[in-house]
Every structure is written in C-alpha cells, then in structure tokens.
C-alpha cells in the first residue's frame, strides 16, 4: 500500500505535518514498514479541499489528524479482507 501525503502550501497550512506524524506512528506501532510506503507529494491539485492524500490510486480529500486513523484503517481493511 502506497500513501502520498500532499505537502504543498495549502495542505501544509491545514496540517500535513501532523497527519504525517500520525501515519508514521501508525505504521511503526503496527510494524507495517514493509507493507506500507509513506511518501510526500508536492501538489495533488486539490488545494481547495483540505489536506489531500493518495492511497495507491485513490485520492482522498479533507483529511485531518483526527480522521486519518479511520481512513488508514478502512484502506487497509479493503486491501486485506479478514
């Protein structure tokens, strides 16, 4: 699973730094370093819609440090059905 977090000006001001921090912690707490690659992206072209991230080919906007865990869990579950 490849995650890109936009760190362009708008996203940065809306909290990319904290979102990346949460993601880094999630990945390390769950020992998913091999399965998940965390990346930054310069501008995903959705500056108006809150922080934008891309998981594989899926764009997600309006991401916050509060909802990122839920988004991550859902994406993980979709790719790894129990």
């Amino acid at each position, binding site marked *: 699973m490849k995650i890109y977090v936009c760190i362009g*000006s*708008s996203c940065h*001001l809306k909290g990319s730094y904290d979102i990346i921090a949460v993601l880094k912690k999630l990945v390390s707490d769950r020992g998913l370093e091999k399965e998940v690659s965390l990346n*930054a992206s*310069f*501008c995903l072209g959705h*500056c108006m819609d809150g922080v934008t991230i891309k998981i594989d080919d899926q764009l997600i906007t309006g991401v916050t440090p509060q909802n990122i865990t839920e988004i991550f869990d859902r994406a993980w579950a979709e790719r790894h059905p129990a």
Partner: protein
Amino acid sequence: MMEKLYMESGWLSLNKMGEELCGDRVECINLENCYLMVLADGLGSGVKANILSTLTSKIISTMLANDMTIEECVETIANTLPVCSQRQVAYSTFTILQAFKTTGEVIITQFDNPQVIILRDGKSIPYPMEERVIAGKKIQITHFQGQVGDLLLMMSDGTIHAGVGTVLNFGWQLPEIIEYAQRKYKPDLSARSMAGIICDACRDLYMDMPGDDTTVAALRIRRHREVNLMIGPPVDPAQDEEICRDFFALPGKHIVCGGTTSTLVSRYLGQPVNPSIDYIDPKIPPIAFIKGVDLVTEGVITLGRVVELAQKFVSSQDTDTPWRTSKDGASLIARLLFEEATKVELYVGRAINPAHQNPNLPLNLSLKLRLMEDLAALLEKMDKRVSLRYY
C-alpha cells in the same frame, strides 16, 4: 574583457552595554570600479561617539567617491570635527579600504584602529605599511595586490579590549584574534558571517556586557556567482515552456519553489519530482528533488521564512544565523542566496492559485508578489545584483 571582481562586504557591531547608539560606524560605497569601505570609531561612547564616527565615515567615503585624495579627506576631518569639551580633542580613528574591481588592488589606509587582518587561503599574511603624517596624524598606508578569495578584516578597538580585567588580563590581543579567525575560516564563509563569528567571540568574552562599542567589518574578494530562483507558474499556461527554457538557460544554480511550479518544471525537464517526507522544521514543508535542479522547495511559506531570515541578516546587530547549518528548505535557499550568490535572477509567475485566496487560512498566501519584492530589496541591501522577471 575580463569580468570585474565582486567585493563582498559585511559587518556587525555590538553596542557598549547600556548604550542605544553605537560609537562605531561602517560606511560602504559601491562605485563602478571601486568598492569603498570606511570603519570609524568615535571617541567615547553614545551620542557623541556616534556623531563623530558618522561624520568621519561619511566625509571620508563621500570625498573618496568623488576622487579626492586621502590627504584632503584627513585634513577635512581634522578641521571640521567638533571638539570634545572634556578632552579638548576632535577624534575618531578610522580604517579605509579602497578595493579596485578590475585589478584586485586594495589600498588600505589606517589610523589608530587595530591593524587590518588579511587572510589568504585562510592564513594571515603580513604586509608593509608606509607611514605618512597628514594634518598631524600618523597614517599607515598600504598598496596591496588582492586575489580572489582574500578576506580583509577591519575592527574597532572594542575587539581587542574584549574581556579585559575579567576573563582575560589584557583583553583579546591581535595575534589571538588572528589565530581565532584562521581557525574559523572556511573558503565559502561570507564576509558577513566571518564578521559575525568574531563579534560573537567578543560578546562571549565580554560575558554579554560589552565594555566598549565593538565592530568587525569584512571584505571578501570574489568572482561573480549566479543563483536563479523561480516561483509561480505563468498566467498563461502556453508560456510554461518558454519560461522554463529561458530560466534553465541562465548560468549558475537553479532553485525552483512551489508545488505547481515544480510540476511544470518536472514536465519540461522530463524528470519526476521526488518530495522528501522528512520535516527538518515543522513549520517549513520538506524539500523535493528534481534531477537537473539544484534545489526544489515549497513556495510561499518557505520564501516567507527566507524573507524573515534576510531581514535579520541585513540588520547589523544580529549575529544569530542558524540557517548556515540547518537543512530545511528556507535555510538552504538562504545559504544559496545570501552567501553564494553575487547575482540573483528572480522569476516570478503571476498566476493566481485559487486555494491561496481562502480567507480562512492562517497565513496570507496571496502575498507572493509582495514577498518577492521584499526579497529583492533585501538582497540588494546585501550588495547583490538582483533582477526580477514577471510573467
């Protein structure tokens, strides 16, 4: 014709403890063929010293800039400076550098300040001085053949008095200052940074309570170096390619700022943008890499910080320059623009990013044009040749 040399100057002053005004003064005039630098140290401290040193440095630099001789300058000062009512003398010591841009020759004229230090390849070199008496003052004159890389240090006596009677019995003596300057020297250190390093040491020796006005001024002989910076896409996207072609045809280093801008540069160069995910400073977005570009950063936030750093750097009192070692995008730009560049070309796109018009953002991102004008003005204050191109 051979390109002229670039004379880079920089200085810093510490005020005597409790004084609002500095009694030392540095005046620089950048002439077509010659760079003039005068450091004057007025008798006493505070207002009186400030007036004496201001008059002295202004009179000397203005007269020299208008082709008068050293003799005429010194006689004028001797005859016009106000006389101190307590000491019955009119007095300000001075050091003058006249650095010629085509030949590299430097004329050093010294009157009672600590002797000018010349560092070549980081080692202090001795030089002859010819004594001349003008208007009753003993003046030391040196004609010196400078080379690229030479660094000349002028000081007021606050440096050699640093620490007298407290941490050092006799103050910080000249051979020790020379030894320290040699130890701290690095070939890429700017004049301003070198002056800052020595001033910092003085501040420490004074234990943050300077007993005298202390000034260090440096002149560094350099070749021109170009650094070019691009921010913002063109208003008309049809111009993308033309702008990129012109920008990358410029000699020197290339900095690209902004998400959209780096995307269009990446398209032009046919190379992907690889952003780093590591924040060095939580307030400054991480940098990115594009093959063929020397530095890629985010736009307005990073440059906002660069302007703040530049404002601090041009003030003559702030010795704190954390950007010299830090690796965040703004610090990296600062190093290239403030230290490496002598000529700066700024490419500014006027396209408006709709997301930046959002009034709910904590910072006004639409200030790009204003920011770039401020940056250009600050770089000019650092004696860089700056040109702005809008598109």
